[in-house]
């Protein structure tokens, strides 16, 4: 019996670490960077970090749903570029204004239509990928790897390879505006994070997502419509790619055909570092926010201390591997 008790103790310890490990690491990083350079804690710098992480952070929220079901979406960077370009076309009423950086573009359909177009196209693109995954039984890795290429190609096609720039002030506000001292993108990210947290933690749908990710066969035998739930998480991540695209275009005052290259890696890193298991069923929005913040703090802090961007890549990559190794190790403890 004492063996069983010991095992149970080990499980609790592991579960505890799983929820608080990343947060402890984030706090430690902030302390280290502050000691190295006290101006790191300057509010201007901190708000800078929140603005930096809000774009990939938004997509990471959606990716949390996907990874909770043991899926993956590699197409988000390309989908972001595609949705950004759609938003630009709608905002400006066509592609004709390519490269005309200074025109005010008042002849378009306005920011709201642009936002709507971006999220609807993103959600629809995600839905199509979800249907291919569930109906044709192609693994998510393959479908979204294909999507990565397809959406980039579509983006380049409609934009003819160049950017579409110059939006009106009402749209730019979503990227550059401030409410009090807080950047608008950071507020959007915070609101979305709270919403996602509520959905995953307090709704019937959230329960179903965890169940499908935890054990798809048991979920099916418990009467959950597993395929529908799987499609829905790709719709969600697509929606967030569209939202992030809108915010990014607004911030840069331009939709770039090459936007979002490599974002899928940052996004997946944020989710995984935040403790969401790539095997599904374990993870939380809170973890993802911490993971996104961790990457943001790391990038900003290293920059602040004049560490070259080359070295930054190395550090972030190593942290990712450590996080997954940690995840595997916890898994081996939890599963006896």
């Amino acid at each position: 019996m004492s063996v069983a008790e010991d095992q149970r103790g080990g499980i609790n310890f592991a579960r505890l670490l799983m929820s608080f490990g990343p947060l402890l690491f984030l706090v430690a990083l902030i302390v280290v960077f502050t000691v190295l350079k006290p101006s790191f804690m300057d509010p201007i710098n901190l708000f800078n970090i929140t603005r930096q992480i809000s774009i990939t952070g938004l997509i990471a929220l959606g990716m949390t749903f996907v990874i909770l079901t043991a899926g993956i979406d590699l197409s988000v960077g390309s989908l972001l570029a595609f949705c950004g370009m759609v938003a630009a076309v709608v905002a400006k009423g066509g592609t004709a204004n390519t490269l005309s950086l200074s025109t005010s573009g008042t002849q378009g359909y306005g920011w709201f239509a642009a936002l709507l177009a971006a999220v609807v196209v993103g959600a629809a693109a995600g839905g199509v990928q979800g249907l291919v995954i569930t109906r044709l039984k192609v693994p998510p890795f393959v479908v979204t790897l294909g999507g990565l290429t397809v959406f980039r190609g579509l983006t380049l096609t409609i934009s003819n390879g160049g950017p579409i720039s110059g939006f009106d002030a009402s749209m730019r506000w979503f990227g550059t505006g401030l409410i009090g001292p807080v950047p608008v993108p950071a507020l959007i990210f915070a609101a979305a994070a709270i919403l996602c947290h509520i959905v995953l933690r307090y709704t019937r749908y959230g329960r179903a997502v965890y169940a499908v990710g935890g054990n798809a066969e048991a979920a099916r035998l418990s009467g959950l419509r597993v395929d529908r739930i799987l499609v829905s998480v790709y719709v969600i991540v697509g929606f967030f790619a569209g939202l992030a695209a809108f915010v990014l275009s607004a911030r840069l005052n331009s939709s770039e055909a090459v936007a979002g290259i490599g974002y899928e890696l940052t996004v997946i890193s944020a989710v995984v570092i935040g403790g969401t298991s790539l095997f599904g069923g374990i993870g939380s929005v809170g973890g993802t926010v911490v993971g996104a913040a961790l990457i943001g703090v790391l990038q900003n802090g290293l920059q602040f201390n004049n560490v070259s961007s080359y070295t930054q890549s190395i550090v972030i990559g190593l942290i990712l591997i450590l996080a997954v190794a940690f995840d595997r190790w916890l898994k081996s403890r939890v599963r006896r």
Partner: protein
Amino acid sequence: MPAEAASPKPVLLAVEGITKHFSGVTALSDVSLDIRPGEILGLLGENGAGKSTLLKILSGVMPPSSGHIIFDGADYQPSSPQDAKRLGIVTIYQELSLIPTLTVAENIFIGRAPVGPLGLVSWRRMEAASRDIIARVGLSIDPMTPVSALSVAEQQLVEIARALSLKSRLIIMDEPTSALTETEVQRLLSIMDRLRKDKVAIMFVTHRLEEASAICDRMTVLRDGRLAGHLNREGGPIALPRIIEKMVGRAASELYARPAQRAVAGDVVLSVRGLRTVRDPEAPHAIVLDGVDIDLKAGEILGVAGLVGSGRTELARAIFGADRIAAGTITLDGKPIAPASPADAIALGIGLVPEDRKHQAIFAALGILPNFSVASLGSFSNGFGFMAERRERDALAGFRKMLSIRMASAEQAIEGLSGGNQQKVILARWLARDPKVLIVDEPTRGVDVGAKTEVHQILVQLAARGIAVMMISSELPEVLAVSDRIVTMRRGRITGQMPGVEANEERLMELMALDRKETP
């Protein structure tokens, strides 16, 4: 082994006092057996008797908790299945371990292909050597055939041939005949006989008593994790009644006291006629239902007795909408139903406690609360889709009391519970839906003895509340203790039907295990 000292052949493998515990449950207790070169030893026992635990220990999957094993005069402590193979014990499982895309020769020589002077694989030598090796098991196929093109029986022989080429001294065969046709079985038995003459030792693990009786020199029978006894061939084959008696034992019936008599069964709730299932091209050797008729009445427990591979689980899954149906009708309360998914069946009022709790019922990463409510998310949430957690927790608390689930809190990880308490949570999952029909597949598998009786009592209570309960089990004492009516299954068909009070283990065992041309 003072008694064996005088025997003509030295003992090859001696298992002495092996015990194995799994977090509080004793799967094997003080089991001993031995086997000599050129001998076929049958290992028999009902499900849950401890055969597979013993096999796992012998094949190096896990070590025993206590006791020791002597193989070929030396202490035998394999660190892995590979290590066991290297030491000379090969286990051939029902699920074959050949790589289907590679050729027969490549499979035989996997990891040790003969190489030529340049360090390159010598295909010619590999082919020639493979031809000799498979000839030993009576195969005359081209060694360059991909394994996927062979029948299961042929694949099995290739595995045996590979074991022989590895200089294995002991081959353990786990239910080797379950997927074979009658002719293929005869061929396998004759090859086993030939290997016996070559001084290879074979441990034959099987449910098929007739086959065991025909080929085995000796038998070791396990029951409830303990040694039930050894049987020797004396003059002729070991007679079936002797085996059945050892397998069933006398003490077992006392363990499963029949709960007090209950209310008379009501109307027929679920009626199945001529049910057939499709052969899945991806699993061509899975069991298909071959015309099953069954009636289930309100307030009764129908026991379905059948061995692994009898089609009992397939029957449950077909009714539950988990597998596709090829032909036949299902009626619920007199109305025909055709559930296309478990969700449909559940909406109609059917519940299923599946056989494989770990893979089909439990969400290991989640706590008790979400495990409990997963099938009733609709009734535990409000119109906006938000969980009504208070109501959910109250319901769980009610079932915790009713089923005496021993747990610390609703947040506790379900994996921290014992098998019996996990099973009670799964039962609560379905009771929360108040089903008309509850199908329970091996309800006490992996549940320790004390909790088994509790689970039985719960099933009786449920029937008393008017639920039609169908209980599938390969543990006969359990079937006898709980069922109002019993049907037996074999090879996708119903082979017999009788009231629970008229049944006994010998009768059921015959109907389950023996080939019958017609239903009596």
